[in-house]
């Protein structure tokens, strides 16, 4: 029984009290403090898992599953939690400062960054994400997903513009459609097995008594999760929502929020569903993933707005994780383990790099006053650090060394080639080409000379990027690069605590 697991869920909530009761200044500081505590807690969990070599467990209220609900941290969830906590902390720091100290237009120096509501939502996200990574009960996970959605949707429309509101509405409605399908799957599971605890269910399902109903339940839950993760062809809400939101919000939305449903999709098929089922269903997800990579990549190439481009890139990059399914489920020893590690590393490095890119894009848009690519010529002069952060983040998307994206890509490629999955290997390579296209397109524009841009008819604005916030973006991008120094081998840490069981974790 590890108390850290409970703290991971409750500590972010405690940060809400000062935000709602005390003034915004005190509240924001407390919120940042709590986000830092959250990093410490998740790091502690990761450390314990790595040290002990086994999962951590906690039974809430003292009633063991299947009657009660339990929390459980294995290597995979610990890694995801730490990543999410870091991104949230950096985004929180970014959001602390507003554009006040960078343009002369704004009178009040150091005027507030995001409103207090933003920090409420950020803390709620932290709670929801930790819960999604820790909970072992399908219904608790449903609550976690809803918490996540309700924290994410208002983030999209904090500024109250019409476009943002309509994007948020579409996001909410589609996410609700997804969650109700998920819930439908949950009820079928309960009707079949009388429990919602993943460890118990894994045992029951392996006996193979579920028939078509179990398959239908898994399918419904997966579809719901895919809707929340905006996996192609269910990405309708993602581009407007992620591109319209304020930069700090876009960063967390793209970097971590969509990762939770993806994580659960993996959990569902790697921990809950028996291997033969995963082997059958894996290609379907991989197909969706491949379509996402290629299709959304091409659409990203055609975008004229920087933030839309990044949003479509997110829609494309989600696909890489899904390519992992058939490879990781192949029961092919080291090669499936390599795919598993590659997919996870991709998730982590994409989170860091995408957060960096959205923050950088926000700063670029803030400096230039718009984010139309055609008018961004020479922005490298006024926002060099932001452009560098964008470029370094893009390195990971393109899969160039040294970056997490490179390591992940090599692992997926190796696994795909070893298992003879040529089409997956091709998709990985084509995805890299497309990412190279849209990232370099931006970088090339940013490096141009501003004065030679006769088309726009005006030079660069008299503004400079906010160096402090740009450095935050740069730090995230460097984080994505650091992931690239992982050895090119399956990471044993990720296999800690699998297959799921409560054995030895309960008192």
């Amino acid at each position, binding site marked *: 029984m590890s108390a850290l697991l409970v703290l991971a869920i409750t500590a972010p909530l405690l940060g809400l009290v000062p935000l709602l009761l005390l003034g915004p200044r005190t509240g924001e500081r407390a919120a940042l403090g709590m986000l830092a505590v959250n990093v410490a807690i998740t790091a502690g969990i990761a450390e314990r898992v790595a040290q002990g070599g086994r999962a951590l467990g906690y039974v809430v209220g003292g009633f063991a599953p299947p009657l009660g609900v339990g929390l459980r941290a294995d290597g995979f969830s610990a890694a995801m939690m730490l990543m999410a906590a870091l991104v949230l902390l950096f985004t929180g720091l970014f959001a602390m400062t507003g554009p006040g100290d960078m343009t002369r237009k704004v009178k009040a120096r150091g005027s507030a960054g995001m409103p207090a509501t933003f920090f409420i939502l950020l803390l709620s996200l932290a709670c929801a994400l930790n819960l999604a990574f820790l909970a072992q009960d399908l219904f608790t996970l449903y609550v976690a997903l809803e918490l996540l959605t309700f924290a994410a949707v208002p983030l999209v429309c904090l500024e109250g513009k019409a476009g943002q509101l309509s994007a948020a509405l579409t996001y909410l*409605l589609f996410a609700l459609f997804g969650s109700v399908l998920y819930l439908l799957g949950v009820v079928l599971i309960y009707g079949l097995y009388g429990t919602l605890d993943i460890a118990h269910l894994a045992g029951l399902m392996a006996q193979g008594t579920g028939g078509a109903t179990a398959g239908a339940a898994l399918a419904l839950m997966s579809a719901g999760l895919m809707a929340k993760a905006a996996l192609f062809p269910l990405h309708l809400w993602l581009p407007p929502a992620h591109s319209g939101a304020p930069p700090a919000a876009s960063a967390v939305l793209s970097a971590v929020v969509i990762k939770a449903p993806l994580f659960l999709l993996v959990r569902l098929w790697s921990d809950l569903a028996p291997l033969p089922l995963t082997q059958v269903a894996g290609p379907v997800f991989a197909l969706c993933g491949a379509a996402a990579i290629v299709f959304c990549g091409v659409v990203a190439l055609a975008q004229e707005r920087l933030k839309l481009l990044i949003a479509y890139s997110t829609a494309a990059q989600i696909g890489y994780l899904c390519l992992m399914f058939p490879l990781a489920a192949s029961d092919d020893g080291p090669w499936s383990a390599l795919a598993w590690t590659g997919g996870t590393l991709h998730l982590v490095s994409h989170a860091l790099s995408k957060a960096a890119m959205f923050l950088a894009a926000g700063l670029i848009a803030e400096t230039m006053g718009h984010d139309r690519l055609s008018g961004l010529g020479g922005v490298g002069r006024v926002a060099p650090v932001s452009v560098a952060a964008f470029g370094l983040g893009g390195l990971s998307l393109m899969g160039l060394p040294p970056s997490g994206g490179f390591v992940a890509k090599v692992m997926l490629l190796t696994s795909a080639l070893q298992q003879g999955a040529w089409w997956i290997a091709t998709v990985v390579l084509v995805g890299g080409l497309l990412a190279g296209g849209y990232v370099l397109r931006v970088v090339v524009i940013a490096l141009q000379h501003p004065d030679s841009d006769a088309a726009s008819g005006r030079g660069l604005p008299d503004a400079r990027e906010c160096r402090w916030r740009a450095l935050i973006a740069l730090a995230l991008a460097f984080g994505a690069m650091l992931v690239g120094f992982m050895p090119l081998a399956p990471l044993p840490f990720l296999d800690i605590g699998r297959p799921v069981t409560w054995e030895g974790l309960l008192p």
Partner: protein
Amino acid sequence: MTGALLFGLAGAALVGCGVYGLLTAPGALGRVLGFNILGGGVFLMFGVVARRGAGAGFGADPVPQALVITGIVVAFCATALAVALLVRLCAVQAEAARGGDGDKET
């Protein structure tokens, strides 16, 4: 047991109705209603599962019933949030429409 089965079929039909509403509704409000109908059907299936699990002196398995209560509240929250978004969106759009001929004042 047959009664429970009947409501189970009704739940399935409600899910169908909800899906139809979600697919065909032209506006957001219709989709919210469709979502609620769909949710009602899913909850009803929880109720059926609970009723089928009657035993140990209870008329129904209390666990799914408790889940439904939580679910209803969450669905309400979703409805409220969606409606608030929709209302604000309409207000902003109406303002923008009015702003089209009242630009000089602002």
